[in-house]
C-alpha cells in the first residue's frame, strides 16, 4: 500500500498521534484506524474532549495546577491548610500525592525542574511566583516534593537557598523514596511514608 492510498486527513491524525510521548508510528496508525472504523461516536467524543481541554483549562493563578475554575478546587477549599505549601514539579506529581489522602495542605506546581544544560533555568519555572506567594501569604511550611532525582534535588537545593532568605520553614520529602524515579510513579504507601518522614532543611 503506497502512501497515496491513505487520505491526508488520516495521515495527518497518525502524524499528530505520534507526537505524543510514548506513541510510535505503529501505535499511532493503529489508533487512527481504530477511530476510523467508527463503531461508536468515540472519535467525536474524543474531539469534544480535546476541544474542552484546550478551551476550558488554564493554570490556577495561585498554585499553577491545571484547572477549569480559577482558583482551582484545592486552592478554593477552606477546609485545606493554606499555610502548608507542597512544591511539586508536575501536575501528575500532585495527583500522586492527592491519592495518598494524607496531605491536607495546598500545592505549588513548578512545571519542570532546573536543568541548565537543557536550557531550563529558574525563570522558566514558577519559582518567582512561589517566592511571591510565600512572601505575601501566611505560609508557615514549604514542603519540597520535587522528584528524588539529580534534577529534583538540584531544584530543591536552589529553592532552599531562596526560601531561607525569606525565613520560612522548609522541609523535604523523606528519604523513603527510591532515588532516581519520578514521584508520579511512586505508590501511595511510599508517598505517605515520605510525607510523614519529611526532614527539616
Amino acid at each position: 500500500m503506497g502512501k497515496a492510498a491513505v487520505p491526508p486527513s488520516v495521515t495527518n491524525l497518525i502524524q499528530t498521534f505520534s507526537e505524543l510521548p510514548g506513541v510510535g508510528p505503529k501505535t499511532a496508525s493503529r489508533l487512527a484506524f481504530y477511530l476510523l472504523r467508527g463503531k461508536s461516536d468515540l472519535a467525536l467524543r474524543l474531539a469534544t474532549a480535546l476541544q474542552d481541554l484546550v478551551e476550558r483549562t488554564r493554570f490556577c493563578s495561585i498554585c499553577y495546577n491545571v484547572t477549569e475554575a480559577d482558583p482551582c478546587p484545592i486552592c478554593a477549599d477552606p477546609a485545606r491548610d493554606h499555610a502548608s505549601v507542597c512544591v511539586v514539579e508536575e501536575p501528575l506529581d500532585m495527583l500522586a500525592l492527592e491519592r495518598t489522602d494524607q496531605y491536607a495542605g495546598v500545592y505549588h506546581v513548578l512545571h519542570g525542574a532546573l536543568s541548565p544544560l537543557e536550557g531550563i533555568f529558574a525563570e522558566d519555572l514558577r519559582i518567582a511566583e512561589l517566592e511571591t506567594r510565600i512572601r505575601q501569604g501566611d505560609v508557615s511550611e514549604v514542603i519540597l516534593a520535587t522528584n528524588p532525582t539529580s534534577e529534583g534535588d538540584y531544584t530543591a537545593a536552589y529553592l532552599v537557598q531562596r526560601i531561607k532568605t525569606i525565613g520560612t520553614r522548609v522541609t523535604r520529602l523523606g528519604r523513603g523514596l527510591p532515588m532516581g524515579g519520578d514521584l508520579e510513579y511512586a505508590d501511595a504507601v511510599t508517598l505517605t511514608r515520605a510525607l510523614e518522614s519529611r526532614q527539616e532543611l
Partner: protein
Amino acid sequence: MARPSRLQREVGIVLARRDHGEADRVIVLLTPEQRIDVLAKGVRKTRSRKAGHLELFSKTEVLLSRVKQSWDIVSQAEAVTVRAQLQDDFSRATYARYVAELVIRFFEGETSRQLYDLVDATFERLETAAPAALLTRWFEQQLLALAGFRPEWGMCVGERDAELCREPLRPRPTDRRAYGIDAERGGALCSDCLARHRNERGVRALSPSALSWLQALQQRDYAEAASFDLPPATARELAQVMDRYIAHHLERRPSALRILDG
C-alpha cells in the same frame, strides 16, 4: 561480519541526561574512550532496577546492547560511586554541572583516558573539601589544554610590526601596568601589546595577580595550586575572564554558572 558480542560492559561517568518518551532517559556517558549517548528504558519508574544508578556525576558500570543506527541501550546499571555531595550542596552541584557542560561542549565521540581521569578526579575533589571555585578554575586550564585550546600565559601572544611579540611574562605584585588577555590569539599580552590591541575583539585587561594565577593553575598540579590563598578580588576577576575566554571559543556562554549570577 559477525559481531564478537552483542553486549558490552563499560564504566562511565554520567555527565548529563534528559527525559525521553514516557519513562526513559537518554544518558550522556563519559567512558575512558568516548563520550556517548545511551538510552535507559523505564528508568524513571521507581521500581526500575536501574533507577538511582544513573544519577548525575555518578560513576556507573553499565551493560550496553548495541543497536544499529540508534542509541545503545542500557540493559543493566550498577553505580560504582554515587556523588551524593554533588546532589545536595547547591554550590557544588552547580560547579559539577559546569564541569560536565564544558566536557560536553568541547568533546564529542572519541576521547582520551586523560580526560576521563581529569573529570573523575575533579568530581571526587569537588565532593570533598576542595574550594569549588578554585578547583573549577584549575579544571578549566587542564580541560582547555586537553581540548587543544591550551592558552599561552607564559609569553605575550601580541604582534608588533607583523611579528610575534613573545615577550616572557613574569607578573609581579609591584607591576604598575595591567597585562592583557586575548581570547582570539589564545593567551596573555604584555602591557605594550595590550595598549596596541586594546580595541580588538576578545581583548581585555588582566591584573598581574590574575595572570600569575593563570600561570600557576595551568602549570601546577591541583594540590600545589590549592596550597596558595586565592584572594576574593582575584577569584572574581579569574571567573570573569575565563567565562569570556571560554565563551569566545565555544561561541556561546556556558549556561551552568548563570544561576550564580544573582
